[in-house]
């Protein structure tokens, strides 16, 4: 198939009369249809045959990089292997076919799994309670911040309007805090990559509701001042929200609950391997300390005698979705934890941290290393010197990696590092893969010196060269119908 026809939308391939699937028979007497004023005349959808549809989607899928095909060291995203076993278990009819509103007496197997998963996640994070209902990390963040809000209001403490967030945080943190009704105060990171304690002390006061902290941080470092930070916030009556995006780094090595966190969420699609699906679905379990247990989202699964039930915590912030979370993702997370067990879960962080430090050590003289210390599961490099010397930037390096079949690292994030390249190898990559990556990176830097055009025009072998994002935003074409209108 040539490149052009592969790109032709289904809508443009449509030919009247083609059929995509067989239809069930009308096995009941036809009933009187409503007045035609109520009915649509026709629905515009592609008319394409089944085999053509299969070929179309199979063809376009091959324009993707994916974790099953490529090294995907996307910092902060934990792109690790997604075990196939988990998909099979989630597809069992007893899990995949059941209706969310069935009487819970008829879904005891599902509730038992959820109940056990709640316990396992609370144990892993050192927390007192779990709700599995948020449907992604950002929704879990919102749930956590709403709980912190409800906690203060419940104590009739209405002055706590402020949430402190380090400048290295994910964008979802400030966005979630605002949705939870707070004002965001940003504080800087010090030159060692820790939270700036003086800055923290200067903004914390009796209006502080809490602090949102990612540990290890988005620069891949565990904050050595963590106990001091917790103390400062707690002394001022605030609570600590832990963003669990980087939980992969600390599984079995430290429990956020034990060092004083009040909330931590887990992106089950990162740490616990729900496949990312080209942008979801995810799942965002949220775990809390004892003082927030009554505020957890509705529902939590409880056990009375040998019966499992959905229960609404007495001061619950409410429901996060129509039903009770992304169950399919929960099944996968559960299967993953059970497969690995105690030994396997601890080995994840160990292997992930070794892999990241190996890259840090081996690429130390190739790229700038803004924080030259032992890192966690990811390492942030900078292309600042290369940019100054050869006129190519982090984006160019990232795009050139594609020509070597490697997915680019996260670029230009965290925002506090110039020309950032945030590399997270994960525990599921072999030393051979890392050595290849190291060689490729050295090669690219050499190319930057000798033939910068190679980088500036990269990638070279993809279905599209660099795309014009400004044009897309200036003249939005967001549907097939939009493309029919000439410019």
């Amino acid at each position, binding site marked *: 198939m040539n490149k052009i026809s592969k790109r032709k939308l289904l809508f443009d391939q449509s030919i009247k009369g083609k059929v*995509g*699937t067989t*239809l069930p028979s009308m096995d009941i007497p036809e009933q*009187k249809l409503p007045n035609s004023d109520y009915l*649509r005349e026709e*629905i515009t*959808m592609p008319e394409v045959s089944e085999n053509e*549809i299969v070929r179309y989607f*199979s063809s*376009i*899928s091959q324009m*993707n990089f994916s974790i099953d095909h*490529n090294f995907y060291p996307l910092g902060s995203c934990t792109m690790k292997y997604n075990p196939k076993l988990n998909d099979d278990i989630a597809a069992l009819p007893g899990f995949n076919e*059941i*209706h*969310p509103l*069935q009487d819970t007496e008829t*879904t*005891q*197997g599902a509730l*038992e799994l959820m109940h056990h998963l709640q316990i*396992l996640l609370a144990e892993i994070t050192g927390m007192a309670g779990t709700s599995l209902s948020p*449907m*992604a990390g950002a929704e879990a963040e*919102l749930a956590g911040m*709403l709980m912190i809000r409800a906690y203060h209001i419940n104590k009739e403490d209405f002055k706590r309007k402020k949430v402190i967030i380090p400048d290295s945080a994910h964008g979802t943190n400030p*966005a979630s805090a*605002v*949705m939870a*009704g707070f004002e965001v105060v940003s504080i800087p990171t010090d030159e060692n990559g820790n939270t700036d304690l003086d800055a923290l002390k200067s903004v914390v006061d009796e209006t502080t509701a809490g602090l949102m902290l990612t540990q290890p941080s988005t620069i891949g470092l565990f904050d050595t001042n963590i*106990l001091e930070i917790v103390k400062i916030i707690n002394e001022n009556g605030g609570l600590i929200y832990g963003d669990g995006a980087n939980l992969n780094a600390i599984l*079995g090595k430290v429990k956020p609950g034990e060092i004083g966190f009040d909330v931590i969420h887990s992106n089950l699609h990162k740490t616990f391997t729900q496949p*990312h*699906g*080209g942008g*979801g*679905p995810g*799942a965002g379990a949220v775990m809390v300390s004892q003082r927030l247990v009554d505020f957890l989202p509705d529902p939590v699964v409880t056990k009375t005698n040998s019966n499992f039930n959905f229960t609404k915590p007495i001061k619950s912030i409410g429901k996060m979705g*129509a*039903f009770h979370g992304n*169950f399919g993702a929960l099944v996968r997370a559960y299967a993953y934890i059970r497969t690995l067990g*105690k*030994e*396997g879960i601890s080995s*994840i962080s160990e*292997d992930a941290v*070794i*892999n990241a430090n190996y890259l*840090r050590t081996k690429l130390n003289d190739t790229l700038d290393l803004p924080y030259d210390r*032992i890192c*966690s599961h990811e390492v942030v490099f900078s292309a600042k010197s290369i940019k100054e010397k050869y006129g190519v930037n982090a984006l160019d390096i990232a795009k050139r990696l*594609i020509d070597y079949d490697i997915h680019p690292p996260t670029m230009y994030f965290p925002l506090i590092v110039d020309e950032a390249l945030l590399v997270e190898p994960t*525990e*599921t990559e*072999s030393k051979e893969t890392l050595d290849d990556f190291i060689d490729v990176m050295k090669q690219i830097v050499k190319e930057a010196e000798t033939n910068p055009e190679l980088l500036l025009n990269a990638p070279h072998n993809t279905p*599209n060269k660099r795309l014009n994002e400004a044009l897309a935003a200036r003249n*939005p074409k*967001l549907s097939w119908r*939009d*493309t029919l209108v000439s410019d």
Partner: protein
Amino acid sequence: MNKNYQSTYSPNTAEIKNEMLKEIGVDSYEELFVDVPEKFRFPNLDLPSPTSELDLKIEMNKLSSKNSIPGEFSSFLGAGAYRHFIPSVVKQITSRSEFMTSYTPYQPEVSQGTLQAHFEFQSMVCELTGMEAANAGMYDGATSAAEAVLMACRINKNFTVNIVDGVSPLYTDVIKTLTQASGINIEHKDLNTVLAGSDEPPACYVVQQPNFSGEIEDFDKLTKISKLNNALLIVITEPMFLSMYKTPDHYGADIVVAEGQSFGVSLAYGGPYAGLFACKKKYLRQLPGRIVGETVDKDNEKGYVLTLQTREQHIKRDRATSNICTSVGLIALMSTVYMALQGKMGLKYLSELCYHKAHYAAKKISQLDGYEIVNSNFYKEFTVNCPKPVKEINSYLHENKIIGGYDISSKSQNKMLISFTEMNSKEEIDNFINLLSKIK
């Protein structure tokens, strides 16, 4: 820690790791965790031992079999999640690891598959809803509704919201949760009160079509509401309904949201599903979530990118339109493949088939002693007044391998909401009605 443990998912053996540690310049992995306060380092982890694939499959088979499974049981349960047939192609395509194990398409040159599929999805959602613009999907129908409310408040700079009676209580709960800290005042009103107008218009009216009890809201009344004042009309609806009935733009909708699950997505005990979200183009800059746009590359070849990203949290942080990041790419793909397969004729036929089955059943049930159909105008789902409490009826049905309807009783009523799809054969429906007739 068992030193002999080797995870199947981690390729580096103890020997290789030792070699790497040497390169790093430390003697043991423990030294890599020195930044963690010593007192809290390496806690005890009380988890079960590792389980083999075979053992886990046996255990999970057993556990999942404890549930009563629609398919083994006949099911007439709907109320926002519906059991429709899913052609094999849907699972085959969405199981492809190129789609399943890729990340959000922030690097467009290596994500054209996902981006092009999202573009098809947006196009199909526009056709289905009659709206001009759609995003690439939200978590579910209920969170779509909540985001629509927040969007309307931003557009009209007004924080009063009217939820019209008939909106699913499951959705109302989620709207309340997600807007509780945004200073929004939610008022519940019936349709006729809204029609009478008010001196201070709200930011939006939220209606559900068909409503939670299955009733199709009067198109003319909705049209009038849409023209009352500058408040936006948000319509919560359902894709199978849209395949047969006039689209919400015909009665003045500004934003249309829906649970997309009916189209190619398994019930899966409530998720993951995909929320559909579409609106008039003039509101585009306030649209939450991910949007794919067409553009060209350096060689002037057509391609797709994530666009209008300045609305999103990774750029705008505390001033974003929403905090949403991970959404539902793979689920949206399921619905995309489903719509492609059903095509123009299939969607209409299936939708009518559901209609005929529901209306056939309603006619028969209305002839039973003690039963009464509450609705006057409905689609594939309706409410029945029953002679006994719904719990009692459902328990009897369950003994006879049937999952009954949803209990929407309040106080002394015995109201059951029942739903019909192409999955309910005539034989199944007749058997269900026969059993109902035995309860008096």
